[in-house]
């Protein structure tokens, strides 16, 4: 799911650190689509392009100070921060609190199926089901959505997500679980069951 940096990319990273603009462009080109995918699901398509472009330009400007090993995680961190900042600035559509409530994970309710429906495993190819998932993702808090997308779509490890979102790993664990459970509940409420998924 997630392309690892190979030797060629490591060489590109070294060149980009030394100010090689073409090397940076090549690195950015490799993750352009995933970055846009992440930003589009966080912000919607309208703002996603600007957010990604701004983030890549910001990454280039501070490339010399980048000391990590994962260029991909670093740029995803910039894009995620940009997306969360933009969401915070949207006054007309108040979001749910960015910080999760202090209640324990066990208190999160699990919705029960209202009627027998198709298995979740059968829904992967169903456009209607995917649309429901997209709608469900749009309704959960932004910080949960960011963590869930970084895990289930981009394949980052919990430790990487903690760095990307500048949070504790326990918070990441909680946000992923809550977000996943919220999407699951929306699907269940539509009459589907995922007991064999």
């Amino acid at each position, binding site marked *: *799911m997630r392309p690892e940096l190979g030797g060629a990319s490591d060489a590109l990273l070294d060149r980009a650190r030394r100010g090689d*603009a*073409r090397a*940076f*462009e090549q690195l*950015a*080109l490799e993750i*352009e*689509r995933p*970055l*846009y*995918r992440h930003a*589009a*699901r966080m912000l919607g*398509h309208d703002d*996603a*392009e600007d957010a*990604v*472009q701004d983030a*890549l*330009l910001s990454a*280039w400007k501070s490339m010399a100070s980048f000391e990590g090993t994962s260029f991909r995680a670093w740029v995803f961190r910039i894009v995620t921060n940009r997306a969360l900042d933009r969401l915070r600035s949207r006054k007309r559509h108040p979001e749910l609190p960015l910080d999760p409530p202090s209640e*324990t*994970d*066990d208190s*999160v309710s*699990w919705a029960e199926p209202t009627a027998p429906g198709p*298995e*979740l*495993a059968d*829904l*992967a*190819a169903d456009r209607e*089901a*995917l649309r429901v*998932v*997209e709608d469900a*993702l749009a309704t959960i808090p932004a910080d949960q959505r960011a963590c*869930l*997308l970084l*895990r*289930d*779509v981009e394949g980052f*490890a*919990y430790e990487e997500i903690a760095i990307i979102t500048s949070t504790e790993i326990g918070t990441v*664990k*909680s946000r*992923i*679980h809550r977000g*996943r*459970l919220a*999407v*699951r509940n929306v*699907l*269940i409420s539509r009459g589907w*069951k*995922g*007991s*064999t*998924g």
Partner: protein
Amino acid sequence: MHPFGDLSAYMDEALSSEARASVQAHLDTCTLCRTRLAELRGTARLIAALPMPVPSRSLVPRVSVPVWLAPLRTFSTFASGAAIFLFLALSVIAYFPRVQSAGTAAAPAAARPAATGAGDTSLQPPSSLNFGAPSPSAAPVVTSDRSGAGQSATPGDATKEVGRQDSASPASNSVAAQSTRVSNAPVPEPAPFAFLLSPWLWLVLAVAFAAISFVVGRRLRST
């Protein structure tokens, strides 16, 4: 107690070995938790299967300058410098003929204080003062004519001659003769680079270089 809160981390293999073993032991005996785990797995699979949106344009900023564009940086700098230089040259050329004509006009005026009137064209502003292209043959012809008149007539005669011209008297033979002298006078060749003294030329060049510098600079900034 059901370990619901750990099911996602268990699924993602993000639990410590001890916590993982504990959850595993519970799952072996709890049908409800196995069902919940299956639901979470199915949900994660659906999220991962979402179609990938495609941006409508390239989002990678072009931080490197294309090879073909690199010389344009130098050219843009040169063009902006040339535009400034040409504007300065324009100012000098537009001002210099005034000083020169004023100097050349002052000497004959001092030598021939009575030689004033319509015939003394040296006191008229040169055509370059009006930002017009200089007529290379007119001034020299008049000058030679004046020098010819200076050889044969005193300033008083010149005044009389002007008076005769103004009254258009029949005794205009001298005027005809003068015209004959004018037409017969050798017309000097125009200076080969006289057009360089036209301020219009420098103005056009300056504006052209400024426009080139602006367009190239804008193109460079957009990349």
